[in-house]
């Protein structure tokens, strides 16, 4: 019993330590927050512009001033009018980018938590020589010590008092609660099993798509860079270079809903509500001409009306019926083939250094 009290005390201590550090900037924590930014921005040694500008020496940089990056007109103008990136301006910008610089190309909707903003700025400061030292100050010692205490503190239970469940063979684990299953079981099947109650229209989805998806997938689903193409590609599956999209290739609309709901937008997964996911799914169907009206509303009720055109063109694995596998005979060991072997193809990509992007490969791993 006394040990239990001690454990409780350490939790309280931990809570107090965290409370006093709630506003302290933590560059390490900021590095994790930066994962939300990393799809579009690079920072660190050798960082280059991606979808967004590189962020080395961002502190003190005039907004829209990198010569080799194509900014929105709004951002260039903001810089001309005197916007310089510092702790305060970044704090405001990262909270609501499109309110702070109206017309910015940055599609990110903003960081919702103050500590996330403070931490990511502290992280960026570690790549800016001019940043104030205070911004990069490490976590204070008491907090670190408290964390260590917590990680080693386990409530000691008298072994004979441990409760053994009745279920199963080894009587291990515990029953999952309905709320726990609901929190994790979000998968959706083609027959509609798993669809949450909700709805969204093509028109709503268009707005959400432009905000959350277009930066990588393109305004019309055409794909930026090597990000996935989502629309078009009809009648290309037998072409030399097939374009596999939702409309041209995917068999089931449920896959769109499931994937957007669980994994998108990239770097900020699980942030879209059921209604928002219905709306984006409806818009993707619209971009692929599966639905044609902007007021079409997709919901758990209307979902079963949707059928994708390539649905019937998938069949089970039959590799083992190919002649090579089916014959299963002892291979030739001597004097095989006609005449001596001659080279018919050579490695086309000799230079795979990272900068050699002018000569991209013929294949892809998808």
């Amino acid at each position: 019993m006394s040990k239990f009290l001690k454990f409780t005390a350490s939790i309280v201590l931990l809570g107090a330590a965290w409370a006093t550090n709630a506003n302290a900037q933590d560059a390490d924590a900021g590095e994790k927050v930066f994962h939300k930014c990393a799809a579009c921005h690079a920072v660190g040694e050798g960082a280059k512009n991606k979808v967004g500008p590189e962020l080395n020496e961002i502190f003190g940089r005039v907004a829209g001033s990198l010569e080799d990056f194509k900014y929105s007109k709004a951002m260039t103008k903001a810089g001309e009018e005197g916007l310089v990136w510092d702790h305060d301006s970044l704090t405001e910008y990262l909270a609501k980018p499109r309110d702070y610089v109206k017309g910015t190309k940055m599609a990110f909707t903003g960081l919702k938590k103050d500590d996330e903003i403070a931490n990511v700025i502290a992280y960026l400061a570690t790549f800016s020589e001019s940043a104030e030292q205070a911004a990069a100050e490490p976590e204070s010692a008491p907090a670190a010590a408290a964390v260590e205490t917590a990680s080693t503190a386990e409530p000691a239970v008298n072994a004979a008092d441990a409760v053994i469940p009745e279920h199963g063979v080894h009587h291990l684990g515990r029953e999952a609660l309905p709320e726990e299953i609901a929190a994790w079981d979000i998968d959706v099947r083609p027959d509609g099993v798993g669809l949450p109650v909700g709805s969204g229209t093509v028109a709503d989805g268009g707005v959400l798509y432009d905000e959350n998806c277009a930066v990588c997938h393109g305004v019309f689903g055409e794909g930026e860079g090597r990000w996935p193409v989502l629309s078009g590609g009809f009648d290309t599956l037998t072409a030399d270079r097939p374009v596999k999209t939702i409309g041209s290739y995917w068999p089931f609309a449920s896959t769109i809903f499931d994937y957007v709901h669980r994994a998108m937008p990239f770097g900020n997964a699980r942030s879209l509500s059921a209604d928002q996911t219905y709306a984006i799914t409806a818009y993707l169907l619209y971009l692929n001409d599966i639905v044609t009206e902007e007021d079409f509303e997709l919901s758990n009720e209307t979902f079963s009306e949707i059928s994708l055109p390539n649905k019937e063109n998938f069949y089970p694995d039959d590799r083992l019926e190919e002649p090579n596998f089916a014959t299963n005979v002892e291979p030739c060991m001597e004097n095989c083939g006609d005449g001596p072997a001659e080279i018919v193809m050579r490695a086309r990509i000799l230079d795979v250094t990272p900068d050699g992007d002018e000569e991209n490969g013929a294949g892809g791993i998808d």
Partner: protein
Amino acid sequence: MSKQPQKDKNFVPSRRSFLQGGLTAAGGAAVAAIGGGAALAAGTPDPAITELKDWNQYSGPGVDAAPYGVPSPFEAHVVRRDVPWLTADPISSINFTPLHELDGIITPNGLCFERHHSGVAEVDPAEHRLMINGLVDKPLVFTMQDLMRFPRENRVYFLECAANSGMEWRGAQLNGCQFTHGMLHNVMYTGVRLRTLLEEAGVKPAGKWILAEGADASGMGRSIPIEKALDDCLVAFKMNGEALRPEQGYPVRLCVPGWEGNMWVKWLRRIEVGDKPWQLREETSKYTDLMPDGRARRFTWAMDVKSVITNPSPQAPITHGRGHTIITGVAWSGHGKIKRVDVSIDGGRNWQHARIDGPSLSRSLHRFYYEFNWDGSPLYLQSRAIDEQGYVQPTKDALRAARGDNSIYHNNGIQTWYLKSNGEAENVEVS
């Protein structure tokens, strides 16, 4: 180099490095040392013997210099490498195992190739749970400690990405077996049979499929038929004796022996039992094999019999000249053990049996050797594996005849290295 600033560019195989640095740049420090020795005139004493070296004279670091040991600095070139143009972003990308630097059958943990769909999840094991729900008698939640109280087993399995060699469908493309075959590793896992966990929850008779789901931000999910789930699937928490590496799914991953790597869900947090497959993104829009008629195969799970010569190869040229020479490589099959490996030095006209050495385990890499006396003439090196089911590794032409150029996945064709008289090797295809 913005994405991986720590990498040493000198060791990226490129036309430039061959031309500027010659063979020493491509082969690393070991080649330089051997080359230096060979350059001595006959009868000249070797300074490696006659001169006192620092390590002969001075004490080295003490026992705690590296509490977690690291490779010799002379092995700094032995690293995973990526091909940036393959994917849109390093957070959802792949790198490759340096097969040409390895021997035996086990892949060291730090060299196992990585493929993530939303970066490496950093999971606190104290806050990790594995849930089993769906068509079971009682849905359950396990902590990591719970998992480690079930009976464990140790098994060696290869993991190969279905897209391994996928860039080579249209012809020889990348110069190095790291890039052509390096989406492959072979590890001894410690874990609990998935069957044991499913029996703890009790699978209902209607349960015909499972969904395996990860805790990362991609929520990776794959449908697996219940027969496989109850057969040899393993819920693993150790690799090669130590905890899984974060990039391999710490603290727990699924092993689906012999089947494509995408199914080996990392950061495993949920198993759902259902009566139908889920048809999620990675089993519909991806990992389906497009055929020339525009239709596509789905649920192409097993990895077919395959082999590759790892040395010599484009990143590992022969620098010793003619004479006694060792060809070595690896062979594997998702259908069981490897029965035999044949090696050809004339582009498939004549074949010799290679020698398999080391453990021969089902659904594990096998190491083969072929020793011969090289006369210095150009050769076309090939290996061909046959598994215990009798399946024979096909030629690339046979695969293309059956599947066309656009199926991306499951390219298990015979690889050819063109060994030139100067010892360099190039990725080619032959008639």
